[in-house]
């Protein structure tokens, strides 16, 4: 056991002799996370669409559109502009969409004419123009159904426009006609087949997840994957420099060497994890009491990943091949395991796969250990899920180390 620790200390000292690699292992995840955060936006407020409306109809109905579009919880801010202003703003990318209500819009809605609505969208935006387009289509569909159902009364009202207030007989006829349509539809519309219950979430019970909660566990495991990839490749350095053959000629077991290397990886990862967890305590509301177990979990997870990568390294026929195999495993694990993108923003099918990768399993439980709750049983199952493949990989590497050293 003493030689295991001696090997661990030796490998850690060798890592410290190469600070550039350490900086890269920690720096790459930081830079990637910063970029992702920048792309996703640092403001937690929901993005809003800016809709420019050109009103060429200038009727009662067309003047109602800007107000209606921005009502309630609508994510759309509207602004009435001239055609020139609208063109300039949309060309400059300063708006989400430009809606042109042509002359004859009201008449078309009332069923006495035809009109083409034109919607120009901003191609540099992806989601918000879609919202505006769908909103516009709903508006047109609504106009169509209103016209089909209440075309008669609407035309009567339209005919009265500009002729002063309608007399009592006209109002009565319109009212009777509308009532008749509603009565005819009652059988189809009532009672409603779908009922919607709106429940306001208690803000205290479901707090908005912060950066540390969403990104930090994945970021830490991205670092561990880089560390494991680099330090598992050290077995090739040992082989190329002849130290592996020399070690095999000593009375020590190859298992001691491998275990020492895994512990060295765990030690380096633990230092990185400690920095990350302390940052989470200071910036992202992590409780001090959760740090020790999270730290142990990080060290365990990283050494398990290193055991898996070490078997890949020793399977290759050359150092370059080993690096390639390790990368082939590392990057998909990062993508699926919640390191590049948090599980919260991944499609359900991807989460389904990712949560069962060794690092994904570790990331999910780390989130629980840091900010949620996890039962000892669930933690034990996760530990077995990570530990059993790692132990098998360790045994396989141990077994093939003699032939690897001789080759």
């Amino acid at each position, binding site marked *: 056991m*003493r*030689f295991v620790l*001696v090997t661990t200390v*030796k490998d850690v*000292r*060798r890592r410290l*002799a*190469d600070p550039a690699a350490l900086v890269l292992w920690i720096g790459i995840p930081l830079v990637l996370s910063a970029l992702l955060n920048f792309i996703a936006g640092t403001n937690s407020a929901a993005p809003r669409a800016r809709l420019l409306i050109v009103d060429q109809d200038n009727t009662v109905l067309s003047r109602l559109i800007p107000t209606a579009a921005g009502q309630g919880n609508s994510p759309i801010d509207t602004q009435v502009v001239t055609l020139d202003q609208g063109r300039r703003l949309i060309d400059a990318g300063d708006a989400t969409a430009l809606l042109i209500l042509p002359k004859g819009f009201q008449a078309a809605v009332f069923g006495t004419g035809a009109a083409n609505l034109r919607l120009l969208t901003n191609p540099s935006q992806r989601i918000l123009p879609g919202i505006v387009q769908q909103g516009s289509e709903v508006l047109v569909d609504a106009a169509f159904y209103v016209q089909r159902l209440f075309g008669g009364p609407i035309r009567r009202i339209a005919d009265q426009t500009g002729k002063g207030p309608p007399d009592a007989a006209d109002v009565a006829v319109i009212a009777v006609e509308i009532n008749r349509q509603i009565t005819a539809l009652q059988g189809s519309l009532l009672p409603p087949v779908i009922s919607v219950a709106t429940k306001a979430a208690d803000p205290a019970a479901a707090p908005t997840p912060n950066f540390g909660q969403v990104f930090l566990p994945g970021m830490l495991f991205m670092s561990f994957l880089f560390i494991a990839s680099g330090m598992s490749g050290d077995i090739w350095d040992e082989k190329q*420099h*002849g*130290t592996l*053959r*020399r*070690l*095999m*000629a*000593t*009375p*020590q*077991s190859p298992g001691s060497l491998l275990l020492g290397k895994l512990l060295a990886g765990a030690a380096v990862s633990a230092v990185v994890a400690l920095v990350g967890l302390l940052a989470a305590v200071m910036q992202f509301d992590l409780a001090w009491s959760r740090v020790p177990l999270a730290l142990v979990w990080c060290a365990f997870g990283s050494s398990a990943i290193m055991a898996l990568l070490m078997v890949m390294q020793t399977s290759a026929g050359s150092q370059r091949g080993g690096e390639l195999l390790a990368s082939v495993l590392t990057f998909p694990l990062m993508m699926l395991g919640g390191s590049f993108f948090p599980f919260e923003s991944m499609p359900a099918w991807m989460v389904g796969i990712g949560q069962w990768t060794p690092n994904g399993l570790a990331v999910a439980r780390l989130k629980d250990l840091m900010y949620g709750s996890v039962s000892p049983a669930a933690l034990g199952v996760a530990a077995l899920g990570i530990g059993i493949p790692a132990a098998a990989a360790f045994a396989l590497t141990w077994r093939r180390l003699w032939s690897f*050293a*001789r080759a």
Partner: protein
Amino acid sequence: MIDVQHLRKQYGDLVAVNDISFTAEPGQILGLLGPNGAGKTTTIGCISGLLKPTSGRVSAMGHDVVADGPAARRHLGIVPQELALYEDLSAAANLEYWGSAYGMSGDTLRRRVGEVLELIGLADRGRDRTSKFSGGMKRRLNFGCGIVHSPRVVLLDEPTAGVDPQSRVRLLELVRQQAHAGATVIYTTHYMEEAQTLCDQIAIVDHGKLLASGTLDELRGLVGEKDLLRLTGRFEPAAASSALASLEHLEVLTVTADTLTIAATGASRKLPAIFSALAAAGAEIQETKLSVPSLESLFITLTGRELRE
């Protein structure tokens, strides 16, 4: 001590070591002499336990290196042909690590590391990173790592390959010191003069076979008092052999279309007679090389070619 009996190592159809046997006693330097590819490193690999013999038996200090590997390896110190060092660690850290690999620790290890640094002439550079060392210094440290645990058997695989003359002298002196201290030393080399000046026992190997072994004097005795005459040019092998058969105290060792090797007593005095006999046989001599009895001449006698070929 080291005892090798009928050692054979085969890779597929290639027989790297073929039925080699020898014994080396404590305090003795046994040289394995042979050209590159003769099977020296494979033999060292089998002794150190890195390679599993196809057949035969190797024991170190009474422990079988296959059946009782860890116990045998505890007594071995390896100085490999290629440098086997952690260049990103200091000289002292390297020595400490390899000492730990043999179970040393604490004050014993620290004291021994200091002694070895002194011995290999790196006492003032012990804390320096190995990557900053010259080739000769690295060679000495490579040697130091092999003896830091005071092994009873030291295996040196061409430790002076590519070393400058000064470092070579220093390394050879270090090897002698190990033997004087009672260690059994197995030393592989393809340098004839190293084997002659350093080794108490010499085993000549080629193509995986042990051709001859013994002390330097015993091996010289195998050649006898005869000089070795090596001629190059153009020869008719049958005609050349029959032409020389009439000369007394002369033996044709090998003859091909372009080389002729002769062992003869007082060969220098016989040169005119040899030349005229060969001229009569239609031979054309381009180069003549005369050697007095030595390992070189023994190697040529045994293999028909020079060691460097």
